[in-house]
C-alpha cells in the first residue's frame, strides 16, 4: 500500500480509503489509485466495489409549492437515518409541456408534470448521485435511458395520481379521500353539495371528482347543473368558482374543494359576499397542508400524507440503491378526513359556530 501511495502521490490512509470503498476521496484521485491497485491486482479488474456518492436527488417542479417542504421533511428524515445526503433541485416548466398559453398564465404551482431540463441531468451525471426522487416531474425517454445507463434508480412521489407503470411510485388514495369528504357533508345533513375539481387532465383531480360523484350517487342525491366546477388547484380558481356557485339560482350549502388552496379561495369568496364558514356554507378541502390549521376557521380537509409518502418513496429508493428488489412498485397511502371547524350540520349551525 505504501508503494501505491507513493506512486499515486497520496498518503497511505487515502489508499486504504479507496480500498474500503469510502467516498471521501476526490474522483480523480480515486481513479488514479484504483488504476494502480488494479495494475497490482489489489482490485478485481471487473465489477469494482460499488461506490456511492452518499447523495440522493429530490427533483421538484417548483420549490415554491406549498407542499414541497412536507415532502422534503419526509425525505430528509429517512435519508438522515441512512446517513445519506439530500440534494434538492427545482425544474421549471418547459415550453413543450405547457402548450396552452392560458394554462401558463395560471401556472398551477407544482401541480402539473413537467420534464427536468437537460442541464439538470448533465450536472447530476457529472457529480454522481445514488438515486433520484421525482416529485411531480417526469422524465423524457432519453433522460430515463441516461439514468439507467448511469445505474441511477428513480422513484416517483406522486401526489398527482398518475403512475407511470415503468417507474416505482408512491401515491395516495384520492378517490377514497374524496368519497369520505363528501360522505362527511352528507352525514351532516347537506344535500346541495358542490365540488370544485382540478384540471381534468390530472388524474388525481378526476379521482377526487369521481369520489364525490360516487358518494352523491350512493346517497341518492342529485348533482344539479353547475355544481361541478373546474379549477386548477390554486386559490384564485377556488375563489372564482365559488363566486360562480354563489351566483347560481340555488347555491349549494356545502362545497368540497379538491385542494386546500382552492378551499382558501372559497373562503375568500365567501368573505367577500359577507357569508360565514361554516354558518352559511360548509367547506372541505383536500391535502391538509399546514395552512389548513391556520385557516379562519380551521379547515376540515382530507389528509394527503405527503411526509409519509416521501419517506416511503425514499425507503424504496434506498432499497433499490442497495441493489435489492422492491416488494411492490406502486403504493398508495390512506387519506383520512381531518374534521376541524369549517363544516357544520345543516340547520344546526349556531351550535357549531359557538364551539371554540
Amino acid at each position: 500500500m505504501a508503494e501505491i501511495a507513493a506512486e499515486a502521490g497520496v498518503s497511505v490512509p487515502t489508499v486504504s480509503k479507496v480500498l474500503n470503498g469510502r467516498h471521501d476521496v476526490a474522483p480523480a484521485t480515486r481513479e488514479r489509485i484504483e488504476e494502480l491497485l488494479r495494475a497490482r491486482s489489489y482490485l478485481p479488474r471487473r465489477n469494482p466495489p460499488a461506490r456511492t456518492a452518499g447523495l440522493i436527488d429530490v427533483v421538484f417542479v417548483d420549490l415554491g409549492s406549498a407542499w414541497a417542504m412536507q415532502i422534503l421533511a419526509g425525505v430528509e428524515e429517512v435519508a438522515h437515518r441512512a446517513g445519506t445526503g439530500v440534494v434538492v433541485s427545482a425544474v421549471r416548466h418547459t415550453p413543450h409541456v405547457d402548450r396552452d398559453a392560458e394554462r401558463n398564465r395560471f401556472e398551477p404551482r407544482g401541480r402539473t408534470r413537467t420534464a427536468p431540463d437537460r442541464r439538470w441531468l448533465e450536472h447530476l451525471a457529472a457529480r454522481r448521485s445514488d438515486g433520484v426522487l421525482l416529485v411531480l416531474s417526469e422524465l423524457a425517454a432519453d433522460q430515463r435511458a441516461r439514468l439507467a445507463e448511469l445505474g441511477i434508480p428513480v422513484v416517483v412521489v406522486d401526489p398527482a395520481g398518475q403512475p407511470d407503470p415503468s417507474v416505482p411510485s408512491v401515491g395516495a388514495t384520492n378517490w377514497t379521500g374524496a368519497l369520505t369528504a363528501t360522505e362527511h357533508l352528507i352525514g351532516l345533513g347537506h344535500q346541495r353539495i358542490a365540488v370544485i375539481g382540478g384540471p381534468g387532465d390530472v388524474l388525481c383531480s378526476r379521482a377526487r371528482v369521481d369520489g364525490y360523484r360516487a358518494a352523491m350517487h350512493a346517497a341518492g342525491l342529485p348533482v344539479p347543473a353547475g355544481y361541478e366546477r373546474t379549477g386548477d388547484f390554486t386559490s384564485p380558481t377556488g375563489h372564482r368558482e365559488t363566486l360562480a356557485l354563489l351566483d347560481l339560482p340555488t347555491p349549494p350549502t356545502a362545497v368540497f374543494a379538491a385542494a386546500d388552496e382552492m378551499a382558501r379561495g372559497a373562503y375568500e369568496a365567501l368573505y367577500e359576499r359577507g357569508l360565514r364558514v361554516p354558518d352559511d356554507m360548509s367547506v372541505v378541502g383536500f391535502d391538509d397542508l399546514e395552512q389548513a390549521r391556520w385557516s379562519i376557521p380551521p379547515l376540515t380537509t382530507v389528509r394527503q400524507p405527503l411526509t409519509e409518502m416521501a419517506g416511503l418513496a425514499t425507503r424504496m429508493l434506498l432499497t433499490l440503491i442497495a441493489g435489492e428488489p422492491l416488494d411492490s412498485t406502486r403504493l398508495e397511502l390512506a387519506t383520512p378526513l381531518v374534521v376541524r371547524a369549517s363544516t357544520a350540520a345543516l340547520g344546526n349551525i349556531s351550535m357549531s359556530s359557538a364551539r371554540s
Partner: protein
Amino acid sequence: MDSGKSQGQGGRRRRGEVTVAAIAQLAGVSPPTVSKVLNGRSGIAVQTRDRVEALLREHGYRRGGSAAASPSVEVAFYGLESHLAMEILRGVEQVVRDRGLAVGFTDLQGPAPGGRRTADRLLARRPTGVIAVNSAFRARQYEQLTASGVPMVVLDPTGEPMHSIPSVGATNWSGGIAATRHLLDLGHRRVGVITGPMEYLCARARLEACRGALDAAGVPLDPVLLRHGRFHFDDGVLLGRQLLSLPDPPTAILCGDDLQALGVYEAARLLGRRIPDDVSVVGFDDIEVTRWCGPPMTTVRQPFAEMGATAARMVLQLAVGEPVEPGRVELATQLVVRASTAPPRA
C-alpha cells in the same frame, strides 16, 4: 484535472497559509487525523478533535483548491418553521443552480446516525459552501462548521448575527416602525402588541421599534396591552382572545409574525368581532396564506427568497477566495397594506 502534486488535504495554496501538516504538528497528531477532523469522519477522540478544531480556527485554516470539494452548497436548517424554510431554499436554489452546483438540504435537528455529530455528516460531503439558517444554532455547531474551513454564511431570520461569520438578515426594526406608523396614521391610539419569544433578537427589535414609534406619537404602549408568545397560531388565538376580552380592548393588534396574526383572526371570529371593523390586525413575514385569509392581511414582508439568494451569492464568493464586504447584510422589510387595517371606529 487533479495535479497529483499536493494530495491529502492540500491542493494548491498561497504561501503563508497554514497547512494540514502544520496543524498536525501543532496538535501533536498525524496529518491523516487532521484530515479526518476536517472531513467530519468518526473514530477520533473528542479531546483530540476539539484540540485540532481549535487550532484550525486559531490559524484560520482554509481549504485549498476546490478540486476535492463536492459541487454543492449545503443549506443547513435547525428546526426552522417550514413555511419560511422553503422560500429560503428556493432563493438559494435559483442562484446556485445557475453555477451548475447542487443544493444540499440538511436538518441538523434530528439525531445523528451512528453516533456521529450532526454537522459531521454534512462536512463529510465536503461541500463548496454551507449556508447555516439560524433558528436555534448553537455556538458549538458554528465552531464545528467554521473549523472545517468550508466557506460559510449565516442566514438568520431571527436576527442573531455571529460577528465572526458573514451573515444575512432583514431589517426587523424598520419593519416594526413602518407597521406601527401605519396604525398611528390610521388614527389608532390604543394598540395591542403580541410579540415573539424575547430570546429572539428579531422579536425584541420589532417590539422596541413599536414602543419607540408609539412613544414618539405621544401614546406610550400600555403594559396591559402587551403579550409575549411563541411564533405559533395557537398563541395568537390565546393572546388575541385575552386582548380582545379586556374591558377596554385595543383597536388594533400588532403581531410578532403572520401565524400569530392568523391566530388573532381566529380569536376575533370566535368572539364575533370583525376585522378590520372591530379590530385592525398587522402581521410580520408575509407568508403566502396572508393573501387568502379573509380579509387579506396587512403585514411586513421579509424577503426570504432574496435573503437565500444573497446568502448563496456570498458563500459562492467566499468559495472562490474573495472576501465578502460587509460582513453583515440586512435586506429591507416592506409594509404591505392589505385589508386587515382600517381607521378605528369613532
